[in-house]
């Protein structure tokens, strides 16, 4: 210590009183934001789970279930398709998640920061906007033995005038389902990795590794990945849980006899024999256990990979020779996964205006607009309803998310609170496991049948994605700007509204767009909470798809994708216009 600087001990209470620290005026509502958000998200899930758990153990008085019994689980295990169904669920979920993660990492490692990568980034919005069902339908039309790829080669190259009898879609191991999931999950994980990169100091890390003689891919994997992975862990878990419980992709691409567990549960809930509702509830509980088991296994895999990876990182292998092949593979993966979705969308677009279109014609024999003409009046109303519900749900989700993040910031919580992990509960618990119970709850409370009730239900699903998209950029914000503003006399509210939100406008709008796309895609919550009366683009698409008319499927799938895409387009356009003269905020 320097000469004149001798600390004088202070009495404890005085020290307490004089203790400094940035303590703004205690706000009235903000400290409650995390608790409120957790309540809004977890309450419905837990209540819904309870509603499903009771019938799983035989308790559902309206159907005469008034004793607690394990009979539903015995019936579930006695179902002949049980083993094959479980296998399809496990294989498709684990395989698609592992493959999606590997491809997304490889693409960023091999191409991050290059001009080609800008192209990939631009493709993300439309890829994310495409509803799962539309992507699945498009992919099925692409790769089926009678699909577009086969038609391109038939009959001139293959000699086929009728489709060959080859099992590609709906294979018993659910590989085609896994492939379909990969096309949708790679863009999602890419988005999450891109959001995490700035905080991992990725650019400098990668550069440093290359300066030390490492190949581009090897260097990224050894230096950046260990820092990025903890940040994308939750999105990866969300992908794993989603893949295990997806219904809309599985009914199109998955095996049929037996189908994956989630689909079979849906079939049971639709069984005219109402006693099958008990088995469905038991199945939902099992699916929850399966999902948790998969997550646990994945966590163990992470630990093992970390241990093996450390030795690999420290081994000094530069991997320069692997670069060429890996970059080519990553490029091919990016092209294939995005190309499959885009070609599928193109197929849907052609279908929506197709006249007679039979195998092996590459183009329809005639074109007609009657599918659009017939859908037009209903489309307008459904699009309006979709937009209204989506905007309301996103605004609420943003308010909750910003409330949580701002409370965390103002109260200097430092590390994100552990309890906030619970925000992701709605992403981890399979929909089929809690939605029926949630419906009963909403009914008992008299909160159903209207668009506001539906919007409230959407909040449960939208908020985790908004939080997921916004938390990293929000926390990575340069807090000195806030300190500078405070030193200039701006209170915390002014810092939030006049400095932080404008500076973070782009990530806020991106998160809103992700949330809007999630809202657009909701089927079961809209149906169950809206009593079927709230007709959105997605509910219309699903009901019309049950008639199997591909032209109408095309019309509605395109409109759904377009609605979600408008959100992403606005998220790009608004900051570009608002900050057209602000070079410091250009992305």
């Amino acid at each position, binding site marked *: 210590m*320097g000469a004149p600087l001798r600390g004088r001990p202070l009495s404890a209470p005085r020290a307490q009183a004089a203790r400094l620290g*940035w303590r703004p005026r205690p706000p009235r509502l903000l400290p409650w934001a995390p608790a409120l958000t957790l309540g809004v998200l977890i309450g419905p899930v837990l209540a819904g789970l309870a509603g499903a758990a009771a019938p799983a153990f035989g308790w559902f008085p309206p159907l005469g279930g008034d004793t607690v019994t394990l009979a539903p689980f015995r019936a579930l295990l006695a179902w002949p398709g049980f083993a094959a169904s479980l296998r399809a669920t496990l294989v498709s979920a684990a395989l698609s998640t592992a493959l999606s993660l590997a491809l997304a990492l490889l693409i960023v490692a091999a191409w991050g920061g290059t001009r080609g990568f800008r192209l990939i980034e631009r493709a993300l919005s439309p890829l994310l906007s495409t509803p799962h069902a539309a992507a699945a339908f498009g992919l099925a039309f692409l790769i089926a033995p009678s699909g577009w790829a086969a038609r391109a080669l038939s009959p001139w190259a293959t000699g086929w005038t009728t489709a060959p009898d080859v099992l590609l879609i709906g294979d018993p191991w659910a590989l085609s389902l896994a492939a379909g999931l990969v096309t949708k999950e790679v863009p999602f994980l890419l988005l999450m990795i891109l959001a995490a990169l700035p905080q991992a100091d990725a650019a400098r890390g990668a550069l440093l590794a290359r300066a030390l003689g490492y190949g581009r891919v090897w260097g990224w994997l050894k230096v950046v990945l260990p820092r990025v992975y903890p940040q994308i862990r939750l999105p990866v878990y969300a992908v794993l849980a989603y893949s295990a419980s997806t219904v809309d992709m599985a009914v199109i691409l998955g095996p049929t006899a037996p189908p994956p567990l989630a689909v079979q549960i849906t079939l049971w809930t639709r069984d005219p024999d109402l006693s099958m509702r008990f088995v469905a509830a038991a199945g939902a509980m099992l699916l929850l256990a399966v999902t948790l088991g998969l997550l646990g296994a994945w966590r163990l895999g992470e630990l093992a990979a970390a241990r093996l990876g450390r030795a690999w990182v420290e081994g000094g292998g530069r991997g320069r020779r692997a670069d060429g092949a890996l970059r080519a593979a990553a490029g091919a993966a990016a092209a294939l996964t995005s190309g499959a979705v885009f070609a599928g969308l193109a197929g849907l677009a052609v279908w929506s205006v197709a006249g007679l279109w039979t195998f092996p014609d590459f183009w329809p024999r005639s074109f007609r607009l009657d599918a659009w003409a017939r859908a037009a009046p209903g489309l307008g109303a459904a699009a309006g309803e979709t937009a209204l519900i989506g905007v309301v749900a996103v605004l609420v989700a943003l308010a909750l998310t910003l409330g949580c993040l701002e409370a965390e910031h103002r109260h200097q919580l430092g590390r994100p609170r552990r309890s906030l992990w619970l925000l992701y509960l709605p992403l981890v618990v399979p929909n089929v496991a809690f939605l029926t119970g949630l419906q009963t709850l909403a009914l008992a409370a008299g909160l159903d049948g209207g668009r506001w009730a539906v919007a409230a239900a959407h909040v449960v699903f939208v908020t985790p994605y908004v939080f997921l998209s916004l938390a990293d950029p929000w926390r990575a914000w340069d807090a000195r700007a806030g300190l500078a503003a405070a030193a200039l006399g701006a209170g915390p509210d002014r810092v939030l509204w006049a*400095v932080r939100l404008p500076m973070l406008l782009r990530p806020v709008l991106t998160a809103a767009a992700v949330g809007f796309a999630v809202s657009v895609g909701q089927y079961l919550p809209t149906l169950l909470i809206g009593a079927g009366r709230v007709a959105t683009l997605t509910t219309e698409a699903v009901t019309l798809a049950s008639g199997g008319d591909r032209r109408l499927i095309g019309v509605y799938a395109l409109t759904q994708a377009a609605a979600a895409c408008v959100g992403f387009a606005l998220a790009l356009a608004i900051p570009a216009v608002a900050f057209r003269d602000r070079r410091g905020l250009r992305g």
Partner: protein
Amino acid sequence: MTAGLRLEGLRIREGARGRTLVALDLTVPPGVAVSVMGPSGVGKSTLLAAIVGAAPPAFAVSGRVLLDGRDVGALPTEARRIGLLFQDDVLFPHLSVGGNLAFALPAALRGRAARRERVAAALAEAGLEGFAERDPATLSGGQRARVAVMRALLAEPRALLLDEPFSRLDAALRASFRRFVFETLAARGLPALLVTHDAEDAAAACGPVVTLGPA
């Protein structure tokens, strides 16, 4: 009542029972710039953060901060009226140069025209006439630094803390900017605390020098 900035038994520790990082008794009279020197990692920046009430929660701060005789320790940063200049200019990228300055102007100054005039006058004082509509990202390093100073002063602080504000500037620019800063501070009679590891900076400040060192 003592005019100026006074630190009374200010003590910063790593946690409630941790190692003492800084312990300081110090008075900075109006118009005087005290330099705080010391190697990196010694806690200079944390000291400034503690004075404005923004020390990271990992640190325990005790003692009093008095400004013109008033204990401001219980006040939030925005109410302390202690200005802050960083190593980087930290101009808000979403606002124009004029917008950055207007952000700092007290709300009590009413009227668009009056506020605009005040901003224009500040720009003129910094030799940046007509820069109000410019995007801060298009300014040179020296110009940005001067905008940052004017922004800090427009908020009418009663003391100013400077966190190595000259270290990012090249040698030629540095001398003239340093002169600009200290002349402006002296003219306004502001107490200032300058954190630096450069003896030239401390000399230019023409005030007492306090050296922090490993305990």
